[in-house]
């Protein structure tokens, strides 16, 4: 998948200072499932899936998701955020093979 690791972040188009806004984010990732052999035994290997999502706003960690393989392929997450000051909002996705995918949007007030 050539799109692997592409991060999308959606924020409301109009933000008023002090507002609590909902942010939606998505990463293109296979989130590999457990595979079993013919006997139903789990094939031991390192499955590649996102195990941690870290949201940073104005240099501080706001929300963290610890995820398992029970999360869908191309995982989608949403969360709330109090838009206190204009600044960057960064979302980082970490997977079990050491992959690190991140996206940034600027929170600004119109």
């Amino acid at each position, binding site marked *: 998948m050539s799109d692997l690791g592409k991060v999308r972040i959606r924020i409301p188009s109009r933000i008023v200072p002090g507002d609590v806004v909902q942010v939606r984010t998505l990463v293109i990732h296979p989130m590999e499932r*457990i595979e079993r052999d013919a006997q139903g035994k789990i094939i031991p290997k390192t499955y590649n899936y996102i195990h*941690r999502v870290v949201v940073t706003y104005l240099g501080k960690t*706001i929300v963290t*998701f*610890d995820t398992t393989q029970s999360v869908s392929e191309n995982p989608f997450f*949403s*969360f709330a955020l109090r838009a206190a000051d204009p600044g960057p909002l960064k979302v980082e996705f970490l997977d079990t093979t050491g992959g690190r995918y991140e996206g940034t949007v600027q929170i600004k007030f119109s």
Partner: protein
Amino acid sequence: MRSSPTVTRRRMLETLGAIGVAAASGVLTAPRPARAQQLGLHESVDGALKRVFGSRPIRDGAGLIKLDTPLIAENGAVVPVSVRVDSPMTPTSYVKHIYIVADKNRIPVVTRVTLTPAAGQAFMGENVRLGETGDVRAIVEQSDGTLWQVAREVKVTVGGCGG
């Protein structure tokens, strides 16, 4: 056999007692798993709840937690779930964790969300996989350690967990 003066029976019992207290209070056990590999184990839902929350009581949070799931999920591979908690988010009292647990999944603990007061509102949404029809629970841990849960049944037409 006579015990040596340094290791008396009394001292021995004291030491054993101290080890027992330490084990019971969790000093000797490993710290709480921080990584998802330990969070998502193959286990039953009862085993998962016992492992994550110990014997702490989980209260019914029907009036507090709003768990949004579809009644029927045609595709178990992508089931949107969202949780909103009616709770203030102040530095002294806020929602610390939201857990999503799918009872029938082979890996029951789906996600643990860690929130901070800066989030402004205890809200999370995500897409989960459901293996078969069963309850989906949202368990909320507040900053003082109280636990609340709500559960909703989701009917799954085609399971999405594979394996």
